[in-house]
């Protein structure tokens, strides 16, 4: 699976940091630490119904949630949009993903974009995943919009 390769992790780290800078700049300094912690234990923190706890939990850090949402998005693209690309090398896929996120900079092939429907589906997926990670709906929506806003549309 490409998603488990170092290339994938590097791309997730890179894009996550760019998004953290916009969404949660206060975490930027700690982003590496937070991402390492996320890779070490990617499971979502489940708030336990502890009768003697505080009773409300807020999201301690957005960085792991962003990384988690990105990984889910990459999985979606690879499994549902670029099915044929699955057999390509990890480096090549990473390059294509990079191109998808920043087409002007990476000069990627225009054919690798997403249709409007796929983009909408990707947005919903990112939002859902961010909310599952503990992000409040408004922030999750903003994150989803920021991410899909970077993805190239199919010409």
């Amino acid at each position: 699976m490409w998603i488990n390769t170092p290339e994938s992790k590097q791309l997730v780290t890179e894009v996550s940091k760019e998004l953290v800078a916009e969404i949660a700049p206060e975490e930027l300094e700690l982003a590496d630490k937070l991402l390492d912690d996320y890779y070490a234990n990617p499971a979502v923190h489940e708030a336990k119904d502890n009768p003697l706890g505080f009773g409300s939990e807020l999201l301690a850090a957005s960085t792991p949630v962003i990384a988690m949402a990105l990984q889910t998005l990459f999985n979606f693209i690879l499994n549902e949009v670029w099915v044929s690309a699955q057999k390509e090398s990890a480096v090549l896929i990473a390059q294509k993903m990079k191109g998808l996120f920043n087409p002007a900079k990476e000069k990627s092939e225009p054919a690798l974009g997403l249709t409007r429907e796929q983009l909408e589906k990707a947005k919903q997926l990112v939002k859902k995943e961010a909310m599952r990670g503990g992000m409040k709906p408004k922030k999750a929506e903003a994150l989803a919009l920021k991410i899909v806003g970077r993805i190239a549309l199919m010409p």
Partner: protein
Amino acid sequence: MKQRRRLNLFAFSPETNALFSMLILASIMLALFLGYVFRFVSGISDPFASIDITARGLELTSAVLPIICLSGIAALGTLCLAFLFYIRHPSQVRRWRKIQRLTEKDQKIQEHANKLALQAGVDPPAIEMPLQGLKGSDAQAFGVGRMQTIALDGGFRILRKTKPEVFNALLHHELAHFANADIGRSYFSEALWKSIRWLLVFPFLLAIAGNLITRFIVGVLNRDLFEFFRNSIPIAFTVFVQWGFVLYISGVIWARLLRTREFYADWRAARWGSQNGLNQILQEETEKERPKTRFNLWKFHPDAKERIDALEHPEIFFNPSPTIIFLAGLLLSFMFAGLSFSFAAFLAFAGTILSIRDSSTGLLYWALTGIWWSGFALLILLVFGLTGWLINGVLLPQIQKQAILELMNKQRGWMQYAKMGITSLILVAGIELGFFMTPFSQFAPNDLLGILIEFSIIIPILTCLAWWYLTYIRFVALRLSATQIGRNFSVWRSRFIMTASSLWIFLFLVPGIILSRFLDGSVRELFIYLNLGWLAFTLLLSPLAFGASWAAIKLFFDSQPKKCPHCGKITQHSAPAIELCEHCEGVLGEWLSVPEK
């Protein structure tokens, strides 16, 4: 700039204390009722119904002994097991949260917590966290005695740097639990609830089910005994419903205790300057889309919205709570049922004591007479002491707070007294339902005529009686609170309110409730006369008691002009507790509102 002040929730006894005591009482009642269930299971006919005070001998004692022993062992066992669970809670919290003492890399968190604790005037607690991880933002204060500890999730390592206001608010909230001294009560309540589940619920269900199955099998094997099985089904069902009801009430008290402690901790944390941080956390919670899963009475935590409201308007805690009043009524009747059990048990033993005494002479004769009378006096004291404690500890603060709130809102006049009719109706509804739902409903009417008398005569009279008590205590509390100035509520004023309330309860309220329970028994005529006598006594003497209290307040507490504690000048305000000094603009009733740090 003037310092912000916050309505003092601790001006009156906190609700958590009352709830804790109510839970202990409810669990003891549950354990005592297990003895009754044993009676059904063992097929012993009601020994208490046939108790004859003049009975002398061992037969009666031996008939009730198993029930008394089982009830006593169940009550003691429940409390002991709860204590064991309570002692073990720190190790359980540590295991469940996978936490340990902070290592060198997290020492700054400990230092920060120490700083906050010292600023707040609390002993610095030990902080424990998972060794690794940066997730989660839950905190939990725990510990036995002076071993105060706060457990933090790994996410606090991040929060300290990214959201210091939130970090401080969460720590302040947990420190507030120590300052409010609710850790012991909360964990013991949890332990008690666990103990009830293990020691009372399972044996109860097993006993009922086992008994029914045995009777069924016996009935199938021997057709003549099948009727016996059929007759026991409605009894078993009634006992099941009644016992389940008492259990449910215990659960409701436990859950309410856990919810209430959070409001009090939020209040103190806000007083320590963490209102914004708390609002941030709670606001985020309100924005999350979460399905409501638990019935309101069974929630362990208040909603984020409720907590925000309580932070902004602490005066909502001065409104009387219908649930607490209803629960007080229920427990009052549970208590009478439990105490009548103790009374009957005493009489059963007393018969034996008296028979030994009658065959003795000299010193032994007098010693046994002394024992008999001491036991009798102790029981009477128990009845009045426990009832007084329940009403003074639960109802009285509710009325005091309501009176103060109405004073602050400038709501005066007879209408406020008339409104207490609703409160008294809720209380009496609780009492009546309690009598019907105590196992075997020994104090509830058991025929149609009895039910008619209950609804048409007894309930209206008891409601008027409760209203009269509430009116009296509201009057006394209002007179004494409105003129109280200074930093603390006078001990003498508190004592006066308590004494006045206790006297009224013992003279006019409790005798009425007790006497009204015997109107459909075999000695109905005697009790009709006793009830009428008591009613006449109340109607004649209670207005006198009212007048005497008014005179005593005037004489002992309102005879001197009130001086401002800041400038020393005399204030002319009629209710200085809620006013500012007209000379120096200082707060006169500092006990009622505290400065924010």
